[in-house]
């Protein structure tokens, strides 16, 4: 496999700061990022990437490929949780299977963002509509996961399930903070176009890599801390957290190749399908599937799938694309 690719991904400051964060936990250092700062950084990244995407749409316009790409995104976002659920049922309770299926059907914005920073580093262009695709991929899996949970009989058929409102769930799925901020910034970017870009460039553009690096430092801390919880999850789920992303990536790769997405869009599409959520989904699932055990689905996506994707996945997927697309 192409060594330069691995290196140029690895020597990306954000990735290195992610390692620094993990290292700090392994050395039992007291390094810590205040929680409000972590929240601010994740909001910033959503705002910045959304705004960029909007400006991109403003410049590129909405053409045929845009529609196709978004359609594919929605498709994958609904198919992945389906087969994930049945694979998981093989070993887990309905509740846990549904929750994890939702987690892997949805996406991780930070993985996406790290991928864009690699693309920028390699001067590979990508379309602003990919951000819209990402935003649209967050929610469907949540709905599907909850549907499974409510369709299949579970141990707790009492209050647990009855005490539930669809309206609340739909709100959590489609209007949760991250989706709304992404979509809103996208719209604002598309509305203000060039002039808006000029105005915000120093904030949303120039600072982007620096703040991403800082945020990944925190992600490293958080992910490493969660690693401990994995002892209880067992080998089945650990391997699931690595193999399913690869499977999703392969499917996505095939689709992207089939419809002939440009390289950059293809990588982002693959990364979206391979990534798992650890922000929007846990918050929604915790309320809608109270039976599910959060110390399963959070560590899996945060401590395994996320690091796997940004460290091994990114260069791997890009390598494959370079190979197929030439």
């Amino acid at each position, binding site marked *: 496999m192409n060594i330069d690719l691995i290196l140029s991904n690895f020597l990306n400051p954000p990735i290195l700061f992610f390692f620094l964060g993990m290292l700090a936990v392994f050395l039992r250092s007291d390094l810590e990022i205040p*929680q409000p700062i*972590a929240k601010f950084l*994740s909001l910033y990244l959503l705002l910045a990437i959304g705004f960029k995407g909007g400006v991109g749409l403003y410049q590129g316009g909405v053409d045929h490929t845009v529609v196709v790409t978004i359609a594919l995104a929605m498709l994958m976002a609904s198919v992945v949780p389906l087969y994930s659920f049945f694979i998981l049922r093989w070993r887990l309770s309905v509740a846990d299977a549904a929750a994890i299926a939702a987690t892997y059907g949805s996406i991780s914005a930070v993985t996406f963002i790290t991928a864009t920073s690699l693309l920028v580093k390699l001067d590979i262009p990508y379309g602003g509509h990919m951000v819209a695709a990402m935003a649209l991929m967050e929610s469907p899996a949540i709905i599907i996961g909850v549907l499974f949970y409510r369709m299949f009989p579970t141990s707790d058929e009492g*209050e*647990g399930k009855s*005490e539930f409102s669809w309206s609340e769930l739909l709100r959590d799925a489609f209007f949760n903070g991250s989706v709304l901020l992404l979509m809103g910034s996208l719209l604002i970017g598309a509305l203000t176009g060039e002039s808006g870009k000029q105005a915000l460039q120093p904030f949303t553009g120039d600072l982007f890599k620096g703040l991403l690096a800082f945020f990944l430092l*925190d992600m490293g801390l*958080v992910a490493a801390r969660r690693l401990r919880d994995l002892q209880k999850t067992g080998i089945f789920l650990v391997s699931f957290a690595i193999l399913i992303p690869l499977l999703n990536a392969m499917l996505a790769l095939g689709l992207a190749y089939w419809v002939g997405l440009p390289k950059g869009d293809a990588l982002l599409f693959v990364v979206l399908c391979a990534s798992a959520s*650890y*922000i*929007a989904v*846990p*918050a929604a699932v*915790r*309320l809608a599937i*109270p039976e599910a055990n*959060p*110390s399963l689905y*959070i560590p899996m996506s*945060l401590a395994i799938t996320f690091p796997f994707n940004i460290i091994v996945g990114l260069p791997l997927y890009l390598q494959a694309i370079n190979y197929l697309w030439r």
Partner: protein
Amino acid sequence: MRPVKRIEIVIDSLELHKLLRSLEQLGVSGYTVIRDAAGTGDRGARAGDQLSDVLKNSYVITACPEEQLKPLIDAIRPLLKRFGGICLVSDAQWIVH
């Protein structure tokens, strides 16, 4: 000084609004909330998840007259059953001003 029941509750932050709503419906004279509380219990550690607010607790305290205690407990219990948490009741003197 008026004798009151001092009810303190630790509950999942995501459920806080439901708890407060039912407190208000039962017409407590007031309550105090401390939003960020970590902890561990039967459901394992809840050190507060940095990214999503899952696994974070909130601490609620309310003082009410003896006669309000029963209905309050009946309202709180199901919430605790569903999302875990703890509810302690003790005696106190309210300094009326």
